[in-house]
């Protein structure tokens, strides 16, 4: 039956690409080389050759494990190490929808809506303070343009790396190197000083039903930060589950990035289990480093369906890891707001700052607060 296995194998790689894996041509080549070294007719060998060469992230493994039996038929023998990732597999619509435009390294065309910017300054000023949840479609369009122009200075921290400076402590190595250039004669002292690096930023955006009017704009805001952040910004959505959308948001074109993020998020406008999901964040990402010494910003209205106690426990863990924890509540800017929701009351003791986030102006204030 099997005459030439090549089309089948390349087809498998294509199927994986459709399932959302970043399968590039050189990876496929590596897959085939690996199989060349192993036994092509063995199911286990094929499984491992593909898993080792075509996957590059624990998130990929669950998808791979789903795609493999789908392509090669169901397994009839016990398999080796199962992945201890206990998240549910990505929804099937992710696999069917992610088609052509998954190359996240390709530079999409930059499409700025220039005509929209020719709006009078006062209109812009009004828009800056409008509630994001109550915008008309035209205003929403204009706001997108304004978001793209947002001036973002991201937070920094002291680095261990030292840089050449004009004054400061002596730098023996560079001094000596300079001396060698003069055949061993010391001419001048070189100096070194501390430098700064971008501080990690983690954005957690609540996409549950009560946040629905704001979610779109907040994800766009996150996109701006990810693009400027040069790898220091991580974005997650929280609802009934935790979804990392940093990869999707790396795309340069905001529309494509948003579309990709939308496909990745399985729980738009669902409920919230803030405590559990924050726990999952701390467990799976925060402790590993994403939240360590980072500025963590949670966008949520604090409507919690689960236990507020659990939320408090997880916030205290987050507090101990993070440099600053900022909570942004779109409803906090409204008149007569008082932090009385169960969730907000539970987290208040662990916050560095509680900010409003209902308008562009307040988001600008958030950017300032992050760098402080």
């Amino acid at each position, binding site marked *: 039956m099997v005459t030439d296995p090549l089309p089948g194998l390349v087809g498998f790689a294509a199927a994986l690409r459709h399932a959302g894996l970043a399968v590039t041509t050189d990876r496929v080549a590596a897959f085939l080389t690996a199989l060349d070294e192993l036994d092509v007719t063995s199911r286990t060998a094929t499984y491992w050759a593909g898993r080792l060469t075509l996957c590059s992230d624990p998130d990929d493994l669950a998808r791979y494990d789903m795609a493999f039996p789908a392509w090669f038929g169901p397994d009839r023998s016990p398999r*080796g190490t199962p992945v201890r990732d206990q998240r549910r597999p990505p929804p099937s619509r992710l696999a069917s929808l992610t088609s052509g435009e998954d190359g996240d390294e390709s530079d999409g065309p930059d499409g700025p809506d220039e005509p929209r910017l020719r709006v009078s300054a006062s209109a812009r000023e009004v828009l800056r303070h409008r509630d994001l949840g109550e915008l008309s479609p035209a205003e929403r369009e204009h706001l997108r343009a304004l978001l793209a122009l947002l001036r973002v200075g991201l937070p920094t921290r002291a680095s261990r790396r030292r840089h050449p400076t004009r004054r400061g402590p002596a730098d023996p190595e560079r001094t000596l190197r300079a001396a060698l250039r003069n055949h061993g004669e010391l001419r001048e002292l070189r100096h070194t000083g501390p430098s700064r690096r971008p501080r990690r930023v983690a954005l957690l955006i609540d996409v549950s039903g009560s946040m629905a009017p704001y979610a779109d704009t907040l994800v766009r805001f996150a996109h701006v930060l990810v693009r400027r952040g040069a790898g220091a910004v991580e974005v997650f959505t929280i609802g009934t589950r935790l979804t990392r959308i940093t990869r999707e948001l790396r795309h340069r074109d905001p529309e494509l990035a948003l579309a990709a993020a939308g496909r990745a998020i399985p729980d738009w406008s669902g409920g919230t289990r803030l405590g559990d999901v924050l726990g999952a964040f701390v467990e799976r990402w925060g402790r590993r480093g994403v939240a360590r010494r980072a500025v963590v910003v949670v966008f949520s209205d604090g409507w919690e369906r689960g236990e507020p106690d659990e939320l408090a426990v997880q916030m205290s863990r987050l507090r101990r890891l993070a440099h600053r924890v900022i909570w942004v509540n779109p409803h906090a800017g409204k008149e007569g707001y008082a932090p009385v929701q169960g969730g907000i009351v539970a987290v208040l003791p662990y916050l560095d700052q509680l900010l409003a986030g209902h308008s562009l102006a307040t988001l600008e204030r958030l950017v300032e607060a992050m760098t402080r």
Partner: protein
Amino acid sequence: MTGSTTSGRPGSPAELAVRLRATGYLPDDGLATAAFLALRMDRPLFCEGEPGTGKTALAQAMAQVLDAPLIRLQCHEGIDASQALYDWDFPRQLLHLRALEAAAGASAEKLDADVVEASLYDPRFLIARPVLKALQTSPSVLLVDEVDRADDEFEAFLLEVLTEHAVSIPEVGEIRAKTPPLVVLTSNRTRDVHDALKRRCLYLWLDHPDLTREIAILRSRLPGVPERLAGQVAAAVRRMRELELLKPPGVAESLDWARALQLLGADELDVASAAASLGAVLKYREDADRVRAQLDTLLI
């Protein structure tokens, strides 16, 4: 404790698995395949997984299998080429210069500046850091530990060295490995390592071993531990991992625990000995409190 290591490259994943087992490292199918492919395809092996699942131990075991030295590069923030690759020994160069001057002064001979300068960049003044050392030593195993702690610029630099298996030093020329070293990279996922680096590697996700394999690991690493105790420790650790602790214990912790119990003279795991030695497995007060409260159910 090691079996006789027949050096030379293994012919199949199964053969490599047998040889890894002889060193006391117990691989499963995927791991043996990964290590085998890494050797055959001359590709670095990129290992990720929970702490304590044997990423570093894999490199050590591979070094034993290949009968090659293990050269370790521990990454940290701000690591640069002079710490990873090579550096010139400035003080010795300076001394050499002074010695030349003194000798020339005594014999009243005129020194040629070019000759003097060339003599300064002699390989004997070169300090080989881990990567260069791994290229000069064939065969060798290069362990690049916790690559996620280094900066992105360093990744790009590693990429160049790992694909070329060569380094060019301006004053000396190119240094190329006779046989490329086996490179094992480990990451704890504190940040995403760049795709370009991952793409050139084989990606291996290491998981906690299943119960029988963990017992086997305990038995082979600690031959003095009775079988019953090893079984109890492995089972208890397994249950702890299901408790959603702050820091679930890895294999390294169960090894520590079994060793601690052995030193305490315990033949089996009971509530008293477990409570006394809990510090060997659990490293957070909250975890220890939780487990202590339900010790009797954990030690069925």
